[in-house]
């Protein structure tokens, strides 16, 4: 029944309409892929720090909503945990936003400063592990080369002139070296120093308080069991989570508690709607134009299903053909936007396939709506 490619030939005949439909689908695809890309980048970037903290279980203050602005809690809580069976080691982490002055423009921006005990080596960032002795020195910090450019060309300056004098929280410190992490929606730049230097930079902060308590399990211990055991050992003012739970909580915050997650979800739906409406309009116009022809086909003995399948085929053709240019443009835009925002925009094969499926689905649904018009193709009316 499909040996004459009628669906394709009909689409091809109306070249302008076909081009408009493809442009519409491509536009929707770009919109959807960009929104999803930013959304994913938001999730990935939001947990960059969490990913790199070596731990199985973490202690955080019950008042901490998200890691950018953590609420400190007593270091003693963490050391208390050392007595719990199954705990191999603990590492206290201090973290807060600190005012960093651009050494060239003197514009002040807030960078996320993480204070670690060098002896713990708690971060799986090779450049940090390598330079632990540097930050053990007084008033020395490491700076993230992939911080937003507004902080100045710190990496280049350090490579050229050695330790770089900068103002951090109003105190003169030196950037001893760099590492590579990247910004996120909540954090523009990153810096790492020792716990001692951290406390010097935040003189008003209560001594002996920490923001994250990293706990490592002895080998063979399940993080869930250990989490439950620690929960029983510490008071309720501290939340005890496994690392995956911590990551999920942080992402959930961005997805649902901030408007940003909503904006991207909304943008994706808008993209779908725009695409669906364009495809519907095009198919509806096409069906209207071909109504006498479809009625003729029915008169010849073709079934309603056959005629409907022509329209659905056209929708699938529009979906697939519109997807390809859309995906190519998105690929290019990911590069452009990734360079501009320093966000981890990545066009993964899974996302490409998912959006292709969604696009074809969107076109098919539009076709089903346009099909309602076909019922009025009454073969008895064509004489």
């Amino acid at each position, binding site marked *: *029944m499909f*040996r*004459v490619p*009628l669906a394709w*030939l*009909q689409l*091809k*005949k109306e070249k302008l309409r076909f081009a408009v439909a493809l442009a519409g689908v491509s536009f929707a695809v770009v919109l959807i892929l960009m929104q999803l890309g930013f959304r994913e980048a938001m999730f990935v970037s939001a947990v960059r720090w969490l990913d790199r903290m070596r731990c199985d279980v973490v202690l955080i203050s019950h008042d901490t909503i998200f890691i950018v602005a953590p609420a400190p809690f007593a270091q003693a809580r963490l050391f208390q945990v050392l007595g719990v069976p199954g705990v191999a080691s603990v590492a206290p982490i201090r973290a807060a936003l600190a005012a960093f002055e651009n050494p060239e423009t003197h514009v002040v921006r807030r960078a996320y400063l993480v204070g670690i005990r060098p002896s713990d080596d708690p971060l799986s960032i090779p450049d940090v592990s390598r330079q632990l002795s540097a930050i053990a020195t007084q008033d020395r910090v490491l700076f993230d080369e992939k911080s937003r450019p507004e902080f100045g060309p710190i990496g280049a300056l350090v490579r050229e002139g050695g330790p770089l004098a900068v103002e951090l929280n109003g105190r003169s410190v030196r950037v001893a070296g760099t590492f590579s992490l990247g910004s996120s929606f909540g954090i523009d730049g990153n810096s790492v120093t020792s716990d001692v230097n951290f406390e010097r930079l935040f003189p008003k902060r209560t001594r002996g308080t920490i923001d994250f308590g990293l706990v490592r399990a002895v080998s063979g211990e399940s993080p869930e069991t250990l989490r439950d055991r620690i929960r029983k050992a510490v008071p309720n003012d501290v939340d005890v989570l496994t690392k995956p739970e911590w990551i999920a909580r942080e992402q959930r915050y961005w997805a649902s508690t901030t408007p940003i997650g909503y904006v991207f979800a909304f943008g994706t739906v808008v993209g779908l709607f725009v695409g669906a409406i364009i495809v519907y309009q095009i198919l509806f116009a096409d069906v209207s134009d071909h109504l*006498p*022809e479809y*009625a*003729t*086909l*029915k*008169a*010849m*003995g*073709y*079934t*309603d299903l056959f005629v409907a399948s022509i329209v659905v085929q056209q929708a699938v053709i529009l979906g697939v053909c519109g997807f390809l240019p859309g995906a190519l443009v998105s690929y290019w835009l990911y590069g452009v936007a990734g360079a501009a925002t320093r966000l981890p925009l990545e066009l993964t094969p899974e996302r490409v396939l998912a959006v292709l499926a969604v696009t074809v689905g969107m076109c098919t649904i539009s076709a089903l709506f346009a099909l309602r018009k076909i019922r009025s193709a009454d*073969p*008895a009316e*064509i*004489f």
Partner: protein
Amino acid sequence: MDVPIAFAGLSHYYGSGANRRRVLDTLDGEIRGGEIVIVSGPSGSGKTTFLTLAGALRSAQEGSLRVLGTELRGAGARALSTVRRRIGYIFQSHNLLGALSAVQNVEMSLFLQPDMTSGVARRRAEAMLDSVGLRDRMHQLPETMSGGQRQRVAIARALAGEPRIVLADEPTASLDKKSGRDVVDLMRDLAKRQGVTVLIVTHDNRILDVADRIVHLEDGKLSSFADSVIEDQRHLMGLLAESQRKGELIERVTDMPLKVS
């Protein structure tokens, strides 16, 4: 001899309630195999309705209508569609598929047959177009053809599937005198060669001679063609006589000398 189309007490109505209007009134008759029948009659006489019923394009409401052995009274969409596959249609405006070439249009009717292969369909479509004199235009789109050529493609399409019945609705309506003549002659020749029954609805008197039999439909009733012709002629002669008399009067008035004082 089989009877492709037989109808008894066939009535048909449009609208419902107070607007219900009878368009066909208890028609009885049959159309025999291989016969070319023309249904004539003024517009609004119900002849197109009759054609859509005989062509299984709608189900019959009242009485009996058997087309190719299937009773169409109250028939469902599926039954109608099955009957339609054995009928060829030629429409007033050719109704070719604009996106398809002539040969593809003809193939569309061939692919309705089970087990039809692309090769066979192509050969038969080409042979059919050859027999309607369009050998050189097989791959042209309908929009690049003349009205007569399009109607010939439509004839090829209608006959390619070797239907038992061909229905034609005003096949010459959009054609000039010469193309119209060519088209009906072609229809008759091909139909006679294939032994197919042809039912033509027309009010084009110039093509009445292709018919084996002419039936006349007026106000939803079938009448003898002879009676209707005599009635028509009487009416026409009367009009002619009247206009002739008027003509003489006008001549006499114009011939009168002008006496202006």
